[in-house]
Every structure is written in structure tokens, then in C-alpha cells.
């Protein structure tokens, strides 16, 4: 698909009354998309709602259901679907989940669901809208299975900045640094990658950027591809895990937010991004390592030696999580057990808060820096009752995805 306007169908209850509808429009506009409400006749609303079979009371939810059926049946055309309802509404949460599942199972439309508060801003919605439009627009690019030429991917995350240089489907250079000043960190990791690969900037055929700093870095270094991390990471994950065909699930527990993406043939179908609090992110594990007096790289092996179940810990909120951590140590629990409990707590929060929003299909691939913490991977595997795949270079997943996808621009350049 070209860079045409992407039409995103909105199925919702409440955003106009919560005062956030304008934010939804703004986020869509920023990524060249248009949000629209599928128009239906009264007879179709009645019939579609009845046929779907979920007997909700709210009128707007009935309408959302009827619109979803129309999208699946094809009587209304759209490129993607955005499902939104009030945070804290139980009835809407049921509808949101069932509609997301229904659309995912019965159509190829990319879909994202979101529960908003009156404080939701367009910035919060931007990455989700960007991912929706990318999937709709760049199916051909996302279907790319091999990296060609000499390309570089830069991933500017909230905690770390990574760069990878690839040549003929192989990683030949990497760079990794904590993110401080966005451009400065990017310059450092690029220099490291160039050095390891033994190439120069001018040798590159194409560049891709992703992560929070993607726009700034992408514009400064003249990237061919500037793309959000949801699609880039899922592509990088299935590439490295050699799962480019069939279904898979990608889990990326990040420094600031978590991503869970349901992928089919390398193309994301449904995804969720967020997390209730930093307590359910890599940040909590970083803090745990600091409190235990070990380096973050030692936390994984430490946790593997401990028994998480012996220590009560609930990191639903990072403040409560810290409280549990301090209490557990004061009660005399070993460092190993506390490390294991922290890993279990983060995995549990992600499982409870986010993984319920997508359909888990094996293989489950864990990526990002936190996938190197074995204790966390073990805890997630136990919760999901499956063997988790952690591919090589999993911490470079965004950079690898960006290097792979940007190779689609090699011939053009």
C-alpha cells in the first residue's frame, strides 16, 4: 500500500464524553491516518448486535459491536481498527476484549484496543496509531524475510540505545549504551557498531531508526526508515527466532513500558503497549538489583538460584514493590529469593495486566534487555506454561528489526 490516507475505524464507548476524542483525532492525523465511525442503518445495528450474541446494556457498546460485525462482514471498509473505552468500566472491558478477538480471528485488519482516562493525550496514543498505519501501509515491507546489502538499525529506547549493522542477513556490528542525551547516546552506539563491523557511515546502503528517539535520530542521520517499535520489534523478534512463518507471540518488557504483540507470518495482528506502573517493567528489576547491591547482569543468575514463591512481593505499583522488597530483606530473606520474587512479580503483572489483551500463541519469544534476565524468563515461562524462546542478540531486537526493514530501501538508494 502507498502512503495514502489510512482509514482507521473507531469502535468505542465514552471518548467524546471523556473529552479525549480530539486526542484520538490528533494522534491519527500525526501519522497520516483518518479515524472514522462506521455508518450503519438502524436495522443493521439491531441485526449485528443480536447476531454477535453478547447482551450488553450500554447503547454505545451495542453500537460498537454492530460496527465490528459490519467490518468483519465487509459491509464497511477500513484499513485498521481502534477499539477504545473508559478505563474502569467492566462492561466495556468485556466488549473491548471480545471485539478485539473477534476482529483478529475473522479478518486481517490490524487492531489495537485501549482503555483511556480523561487525561489520555495524543502522545500516548501516537505509537499505537503509528503501528496501525504501518501495518496497513507497509505489509510488503513487513513481509521482508531477509536482510540485504549493508544496513544499520538504531533503537533509541527509554533506558538504552542500541545499534546494529547487518550485511547479507548477518549481524556484523553492535553497539549498546544507556540512554542519556538521545543524540549523544546514538552517536556513541553507532561508533561502536561501525568499529566492530569495520565499515564507515558512507558504506551503508540504508538506515532505519526506532524507539522513543526515532524521529530526532532519524532526521539527524537521514534515515530511510523511521518506524515505531511495535512493528519493528516484532519483525526483529521473528527474524532472530527463525519464526517468520505462522503464529507467534512477542513479549518485550521494556524500561518504561511493555509490549505484547501477536504476530502472524511476521506481521503484527493485535498488540498491547503500556503497563500499569513501572512496577511491571524493567525499571523495577533495575531498582531491585541496585537495592541488592548487584549489577543488573547478575540479577538473572541470582534469581535462578532462588525460590520466588517464598517471598511475598507485589510490584503492581513501584512504591509498593519497593516496600515489599525492603520488608523481605528486613525479614531476613536471602538475596536469591528476593531476586526471584522480584522477577516473578514483574512477570505476574505483565501476565495479569497485558497478556490478557492478546491471544498467546506459541512460540512465545521474549526480547529486549530484560530477556537476558533468566529469572524473569523462567517466571514468565512458568506463568504461561510454555518454553520461552530467547533468540540470540535479543537485546538488539529493535535495531535488528530496523536494519532488516530498512534493507527494503537498498535498491531504491
Amino acid at each position, binding site marked *: 500500500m502507498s502512503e495514502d490516507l489510512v482509514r482507521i475505524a473507531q469502535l468505542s464507548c465514552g*471518548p467524546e*464524553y*471523556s*473529552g479525549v*476524542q480530539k486526542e484520538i483525532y490528533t494522534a491519527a492525523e500525526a501519522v497520516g491516518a483518518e479515524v472514522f465511525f462506521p455508518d450503519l442503518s438502524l436495522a443493521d445495528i439491531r441485526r449485528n448486535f443480536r447476531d454477535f450474541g453478547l447482551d*450488553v446494556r450500554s*447503547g454505545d457498546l451495542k453500537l460498537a459491536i454492530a460496527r465490528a460485525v459490519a467490518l468483519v462482514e465487509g459491509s464497511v471498509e477500513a484499513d485498521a481498527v481502534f477499539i477504545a473505552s*473508559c478505563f474502569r468500566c467492566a462492561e466495556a472491558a468485556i466488549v473491548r476484549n471480545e471485539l478485539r478477538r473477534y476482529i483478529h480471528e475473522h479478518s486481517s485488519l490490524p487492531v489495537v484496543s485501549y482503555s483511556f482516562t480523561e487525561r489520555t493525550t495524543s502522545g500516548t496514543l501516537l505509537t499505537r496509531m503509528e503501528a496501525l498505519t504501518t501495518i496497513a501501509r507497509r505489509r510488503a515491507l513487513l513481509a521482508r524475510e531477509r536482510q540485504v546489502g549493508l544496513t544499520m538499525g538504531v533503537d533509541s529506547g527509554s533506558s538504552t540505545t542500541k545499534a546494529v549493522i547487518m550485511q547479507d542477513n548477518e549481524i556484523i556490528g553492535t553497539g549498546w549504551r544507556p540512554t542519556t542525551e538521545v543524540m549523544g547516546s546514538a552517536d556513541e552506539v553507532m561508533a561502536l557498531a561501525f568499529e566492530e563491523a569495520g565499515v564507515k557511515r558512507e558504506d551503508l546502503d540504508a538506515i532505519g531508526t526506532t524507539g522513543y528517539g526515532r524521529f530526532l535520530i532519524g532526521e539527524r542521520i537521514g534515515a530511510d526508515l523511521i518506524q515505531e517499535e511495535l512493528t519493528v520489534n516484532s519483525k526483529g523478534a521473528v527474524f532472530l527466532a527463525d519464526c517468520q512463518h505462522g503464529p507467534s507471540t512477542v513479549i518485550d518488557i521494556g524500561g518504561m513500558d511493555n509490549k505484547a504483540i501477536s504476530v502472524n507470518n511476521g506481521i503484527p495482528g493485535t498488540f498491547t503497549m503500556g503497563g500499569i506502573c513501572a512496577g511491571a517493567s524493567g525499571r523495577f528489576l533495575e531498582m531491585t538489583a541496585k537495592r541488592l547491591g548487584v549489577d543488573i547482569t547478575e540479577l538473572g543468575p541470582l534469581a535462578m538460584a532462588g525460590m520466588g514463591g517464598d517471598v511475598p512481593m507485589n510490584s503492581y505499583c513501584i512504591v509498593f514493590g519497593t516496600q515489599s522488597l525492603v520488608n523481605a530483606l528486613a525479614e531476613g530473606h536471602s538475596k536469591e529469593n528476593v531476586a526471584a520474587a522480584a522477577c516473578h512479580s514483574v512477570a505476574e503483572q505483565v501476565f495479569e495486566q497485558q497478556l490478557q489483551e492478546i491471544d498467546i500463541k506459541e512460540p512465545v519469544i521474549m526480547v529486549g534487555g530484560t530477556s537476558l534476565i533468566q529469572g524473569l524468563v523462567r517466571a514468565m515461562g512458568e506463568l504461561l506454561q510454555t518454553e520461552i524462546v530467547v533468540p540470540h542478540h535479543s537485546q538488539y531486537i529493535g535495531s535488528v528489526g530496523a536494519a532488516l526493514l530498512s534493507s527494503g530501501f537498498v535498491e531504491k538508494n
Partner: protein
Amino acid sequence: MAKVFIYPATSLILSDLVARFGHKALGTALSIRERIQTAGLDSPPLQMTPEDAKRGLRWAAVEVPSGVRGRMSLFGPLIDEAEAAVIVKHADYAFGCMGCARTDELIEFLIKQKGVPVLEVEYPSDEDTGIAFVRSIKAFLKSLEGTHE
């Protein structure tokens, strides 16, 4: 003339019935028109802003979804003003949609708690019940005559 809150508040038929029998209908048509026509606000389509959800705290607590609170900032002032109410139970979608079931529950509760005369009537299913429906609303509205100036 009494100020009669109608439920569903978007029902034009109820609004018309109340007006025909000499009372003022308190529905959302006017409050929504005000939102659309007020200059300076720019949150389409209703021009509701997050401030409205904050104002809704007067009727619903902060744990309540923001959509309910935003809706209450429209319905709340109408309920406060109401001197009587006609509530149609289990109304058809086409008769007037209220959108949020949780808001509906709160509205019904608040209007009953006010202690004003309230008529609760089932939505008609055929012509006979339709005639009885209009007749009962007419009788109720007539009973309000003289009780309010």
C-alpha cells in the same frame, strides 16, 4: 408548567409529548446544542473536554469511568433542575439511546432520590400498549398541571 426530566434524555418523542401537554422537557438536545455552538472549545463532536469529566465529579466519584462523569456533567444539571420525570424502561434503540448503562443507572437513582413525581412506564411492544403508553404519559403530565407555576 413543570420542568420534566425525560429518560432516555435523547428521546424526541418524549420531548415532544412533554411540550404538547404544556411542560418544559429537560432532555439533552439543548445541552448538546450548547456544547456544539459554544465558541472557543475545540473537542469535536460534542466539544466536551477533560474539564467536563472533572465537573462530573459533583455527581460521580473519581473511581467512576471518565465517560460516566463527562456524561453526568450534561445530565447532572438537568436532574438538579427537574421538578418531575418520565422514565421509559427498556426503550428501543431508536426511541432514544443513552449510551452508557452505568450512567443510566445513576441518572435513574438520582432522579428518584430527588423525591419529585416520577412516572415509570414500559416501552410499548404493540399498538394497544402504545396507546396505553401515550395515555399514561398524558395523564401523568396533566396531573402536574397546577402543581407547578
